[in-house]
């Protein structure tokens, strides 16, 4: 079935305009990045020149909680992989913040399980918990 959208002579023009417009729109998006090119390159140079821990602590998802992430990395180095952990959040810690900290701690401590529980003390604490096979030791 042929759709009489445009006379045959005009079809190439219409098609070129549609495709050209779409490509121009997409290219404009690529040319308007979230960061200027120079900043992106500087960012890349700094990260690729840093060590693994520095990279992680300064990564966009961890930089705002760098002190917490540093503490979790210390615990990660000290605890055996067989153990698990509990994140105790005080009454001053909102649900959203506790969940965000739980996700970060779970990532950094993987493959350990990190459970979230509420405590009476203010702030957050990470406690070691027996992991699979460790119960009763």
């Amino acid at each position, binding site marked *: 079935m*042929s759709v009489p*959208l445009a006379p045959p002579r005009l079809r190439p023009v219409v098609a070129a305009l549609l495709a050209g417009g779409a490509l121009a729109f*997409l290219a404009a998006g690529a040319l308007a990045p*979230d960061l200027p090119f120079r900043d992106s390159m500087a960012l890349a140079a700094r990260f690729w020149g840093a060590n693994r821990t520095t990279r992680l602590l300064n990564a966009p998802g*961890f930089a705002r909680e760098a002190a917490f992430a540093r503490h979790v990395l210390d615990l990660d180095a000290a605890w055996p*992989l067989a153990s698990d952990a509990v994140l105790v959040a005080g009454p001053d810690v909102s649900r959203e913040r506790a969940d965000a900290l739980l996700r970060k701690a*779970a990532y950094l401590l*993987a493959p350990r399980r990190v459970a979230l529980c509420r405590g009476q003390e203010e702030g957050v604490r990470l406690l070691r918990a027996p992991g699979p096979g460790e119960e009763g030791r």
Partner: protein
Amino acid sequence: MTRKALSAAALLLLIVLLLLGFSTATLTAVRTPLSLGDYVAIWGLKGRAIERGGSLASVFRVDPDGATSHPEYPPLWPMVLAGFARATGGWDELVLTLLRPFLLVGALAGAAAATRAPPPYRLLAAAAVSLLPYWRSPLYAGYAEPLLVVLLLAALLESGREGKGAALRLAFVLALAALTKQEGAWAALVTTGTLVAARRRVPALAALGGWVLGVVPWTLYRHAHASTSLADFSLAAFRPLGVLAAVGALAREAGPAALAVAAVAGGLLALAPRTRQRRRGLLLALGAYLLGLLGAFAFARVDVGWLVRWTWDRLGFVPLVLLVPVLAEALAEALDGPSAEGAPAGETGEGASSATPLADRRQEPLLPPSLETSSSGPTTIPFPAALHMS
């Protein structure tokens, strides 16, 4: 300007666009370590657990209740992350970003190969895919969709070929797609249905076999680890009005983008009846794929508006990539006439023809005559505020 010069200029422009898309997408991906959104909560968490725990079962240990990390999700992408980390000397969120340009090259090659049109249009398809906004979202740098689109483009290519080898490869890539995301499993079922409708029995069986291989072992494995349900969806949560809610949310969140895509795609396909006919199966499959995704919202346990808001662009990215080769073919037909048709590499099926350069095959001018005017140690690194995302 002569037609030859115009063709050369168009080719040069396409190459520039491809390089622009590839370079900006790559720079966005590799300039900062993976650390955002679902990477930390889901993909990276499970990949890190597998790599450090040395076992696939670690994905259940980190989140036995399935509260945050979707342990029921197919495991291939976390396994790829873990394998790449092992191969490169340990888990490093910055080194892992190098997977993105590799997958992008795969997607560009897949889009070009799946386009049944002369080389310039294959180049155009690759350029268009490289310029899609998904690749330039820092949030999505560690997500699984790029692997899925590479596999589904390979499936698209193999589903157009005949022979036992092609059938085996189709089953293989669809199994991997089903092991990458649940949408991959749905795509395998849709492919099976499309091939059955086309009475292509061997490829249909291969696609079904791919679905079985991708879904059944993983389902049994996760049931053995007490992961028996989907976190966001369940049959018990069925609400017919959920689909209407999803449509409303989609209209709010994605209305202008969807209209723009529909206008360009509809316009190009309206101008290319032969492409519409030749690609009817794929177009119907993409429609069924989208309808399936929309229907899934009727089974959402969580707020549909919230789910749509955080997933629509990622869910739409995959079928859009698969549509790009068809649109490039439609453009080729509209510009060059129905004979502007190439075959994917190794194509032996009906409709296959040799691909020759645009300038040699053109029956109508690329541009209207009126436009042819001429004959011739931990330290703190400061970051821009825009990158501080939680």
